[in-house]
């Protein structure tokens, strides 16, 4: 099927006349992986060659649903977990299975292990074949600005950033003056005024200091923690990350007696009390839980990792969960060696990375791209789950102006969402936390620029190429995330399902994306189909 042609003269080439529909039999056979282009545009991935089978399954599902009692249907709705609606065939099959019908016909799937794109049958294999309807990553804007002054502000910001990219620093400097004047006229307490001032500030720092040597007034670990904590309180992004990750980790640990969580950035360990409590309440009793927390070394002699570990141990003891903690101090994730984590073959391992992987996208070290190094040793650990939460934006584009533009829209939206938080000092300190991120994206280059956010579509490719397969987050996680958000009085946050991943955004703009992965064991000398439990 070629690209669809919407002009009237295509009537002769359209696939149906007004009285008959199924002319697919007259089309030449499609390459096996070819998706139906029109269904793909509507958000469903169905291979052209599978259309008849999928239709047949839908018919069967309807027949079964008609025969089912209302009780059975409501069980189907309330208890069944739905996954990845984009993979329509699988979704229909899962409903058929829930309604206890005959096992569905299986669609032949390549299991050739020498093909890097091949996966075992029960893993979504469409991830690599996404028809890019909107290009690699659509740049999304929820326009928060409407008045003329705001539009002017954005316009001059863009012009200034462009001058910076060109190296015309004297013009850029003049434009900074214009921007300061505009900021004076705009309401700088909210919206574009607030975020605009941070961007003007970042631009002027970049003009004054060379980006490779950008020096932030480095905060003490303590000050950093304060900002982080207030960001955690003021808006739901971190809570969503923790919550969704814990849900997926809990499921991955089902039936396991010895479990080991490796947290790539322990911080204050805010994520773990909830998991400890959930494990305590697990039917059948809690497992032995080991937690390895990675974090930067404490400069002031405190062993902050250990302090957090002790607090968590205290909590675990109070709910009768056998618990062991280990801290691993490392300034960079690619400084961590697997032996430091002391994993044992008996344990089920969960690797938890909340906004950490993007820091590895900087310049290569002597050992190669840091991200590849780290993904490689993660894979060697053979975790049952690798949980990845990242900012949903592309702040790692090669051209400065592109990064600047994208960041402007991303952080405008994030600030917009913060506007509804009225608690102080949470809000002000949360804004400072975000400001530091903005500064890093805008002012820095080279190894100092660590906020190298990339969107979900790119992480998917990266992780698949590194030998991981997606684990889908389902309707139960989705529903609970939505319910979590109702705790925030602000209606404006939206959770969306995106091919097995969940995103949290403000209005229709996703800002944070959560995805779960499992490692495909590296091929050994024996070739054969892999059985996944």
């Amino acid at each position: 099927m070629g690209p669809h042609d919407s002009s009237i003269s295509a009537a002769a080439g359209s696939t149906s006349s007004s009285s008959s529909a199924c002319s697919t039999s007259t089309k030449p056979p499609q390459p096996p992986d070819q998706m139906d282009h029109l269904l793909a545009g509507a958000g469903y991935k169905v291979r052209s060659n599978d259309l008849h089978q999928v239709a047949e399954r839908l018919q069967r599902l309807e027949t079964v649903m008609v025969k089912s009692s209302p009780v059975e249907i409501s069980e189907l709705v309330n208890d069944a977990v739905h996954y990845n609606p984009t993979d329509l065939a699988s979704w229909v099959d899962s409903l058929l299975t829930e309604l206890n019908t005959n096992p569905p016909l299986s669609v032949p799937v390549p299991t050739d292990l020498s093909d890097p794109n091949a996966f075992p049958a029960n893993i979504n294999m469409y991830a690599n074949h996404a028809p890019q309807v909107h290009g690699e990553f659509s740049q999304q804007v929820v326009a928060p600005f409407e008045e003329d002054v705001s539009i002017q502000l954005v316009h001059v910001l863009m012009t200034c950033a462009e001058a910076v990219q060109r190296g015309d620093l004297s013009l850029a400097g003049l434009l900074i003056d214009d921007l300061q004047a505009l900021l004076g006229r705009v309401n700088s307490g909210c919206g574009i005024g607030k975020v605009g001032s941070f961007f003007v500030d970042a631009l002027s720092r970049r003009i004054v200091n060379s980006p490779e040597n950008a020096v932030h007034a480095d905060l003490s670990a303590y000050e950093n923690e304060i900002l982080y904590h207030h960001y955690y309180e003021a808006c739901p992004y971190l809570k969503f990350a923790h919550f969704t990750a814990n849900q997926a980790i809990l499921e991955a640990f089902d039936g396991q007696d010895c479990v080991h969580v490796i947290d790539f950035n322990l911080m204050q360990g805010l994520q773990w009390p909830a998991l400890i409590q959930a494990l305590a309440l697990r039917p059948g009793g809690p497992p032995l839980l080991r937690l390895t927390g990675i974090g930067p070394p404490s400069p002031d002699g405190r062993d902050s990792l250990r302090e957090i570990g002790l607090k968590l141990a205290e909590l675990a003891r109070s709910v009768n969960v056998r618990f062991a903690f280990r801290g691993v101090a490392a300034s960079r994730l690619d400084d961590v060696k697997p032996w430091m984590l002391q994993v044992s073959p008996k344990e089920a391992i969960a690797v938890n990375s909340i906004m950490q992987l993007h820091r590895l996208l900087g310049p290569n070290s002597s050992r190669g791209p840091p991200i590849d190094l780290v993904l490689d040793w993660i894979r060697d650990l053979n975790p049952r789950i690798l949980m990845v939460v990242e900012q949903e934006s592309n702040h790692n584009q090669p051209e400065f102006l592109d990064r600047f533009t994208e960041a402007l829209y991303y952080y405008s939206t994030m600030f917009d969402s913060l506007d509804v938080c009225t608690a102080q000092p949470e809000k002000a300190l949360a804004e400072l936390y975000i400001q530091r991120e903005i500064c890093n994206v805008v002012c820095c280059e080279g190894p100092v620029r660590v906020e190298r956010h990339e969107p979900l579509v790119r992480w998917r490719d990266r992780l698949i190429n590194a030998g991981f397969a997606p684990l889908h987050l389902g309707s139960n996680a989705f529903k609970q995330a939505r319910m979590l958000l109702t705790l925030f009085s602000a209606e404006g946050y939206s959770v969306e399902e995106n091919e097995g991943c969940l995103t949290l955004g403000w209005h229709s703009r996703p800002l944070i994306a959560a995805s779960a992965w499992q490692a495909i064991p590296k091929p050994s000398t024996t070739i054969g189909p892999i059985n996944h439990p």
Partner: protein
Amino acid sequence: MAGSDQINLSESKRVVPLNTWILMSNFKLAYNLLRRPDGTFNRHLAEFLDRKVPANVNPVDGVFSFDIVIDRTINLLSRIYRPAAKETEGGAPLSTSIAQLEKPVSTSDVVPVIIFFHGGSFAHSSANSAIYDILCRRLVGLCNAVVVSVNYRRAPENPYPSAYDDGWTALEWVNSRPWLQSKDSKVHIFLAGDSSGGNIVHQVALRAVKSEIQVLGNILLNPMFGGKTRTESEKRLDSRYFVTIQDRDWYWKAFLPEGEDRDHPACNPFGPKGASLEGIKFPKSLVVVAGLDLIQDWQLAYADGLKRAGHEVKLLYLEKATIGFYLLPNNDHFHTVMDEIHNFVTPIPDCE
């Protein structure tokens, strides 16, 4: 019943392309799961299953889009679709788009602004649903128009009159944007919608009559109307082409005020409780009716009612079309309708 169901399934398969059949059947079955017998709606599962797409400031096939909150008090979002600039100003196309988000539509031309209300029987879908994003993008190129797709509040959580109020808010908002004005400093507004969106078009146009705002035309695709009695088409076509009387009843009950029946004027504008439309300045209408849509008798009565009240109506009756035929460009009805919409919206020079 099982036997006739099988017949129904094969019959509907014969009249639409296979991929359309899959799409509509998928909606039908998913929606069955979402409607609860007690009148409540499984919104969590609905949002999980709905396939959404993001807005995109980068032009794709000559169209870019962005979202705007047009009423903060109720978080009313609209997605704006605009034709991308033909010439770039030396910079990357990206920079041009950003400067043009709210750049005036035209100082030299008349550019129609189509306010679009998506379908979903008042309960389903959103402005950012994939199927409606595609349709709106198509309308931009087709009519060289700006399209404003309104993310109105849905039933049963927000029944009558929320959707109409949101439609009205959008109309006022569009009419008051300087950057949506054409060369004559006026905003050239058309209203368009399918299914429940078509119903909203009528109500918003009606409300506009009493105001200063001029609506140049209404486009109703398979609009959702009904009434207390069971019409011949409802009885004849019940469950045969993806839709049942039972589900129509459920959606009306979810939308209409408590205690009201389907002769409420929102559902049945030309019924016993409807107001007369005679003598008012109502816009011209393009009403598209699918011959295999079970509510066609109500839709035809609507077109007829407009005519009898003295208003200009173009009725497009597509004998072999089912609901949703305009969602995928794989059938003749689709192309016919797109042609008609183009002619309806495009200003004819020298004929003002």
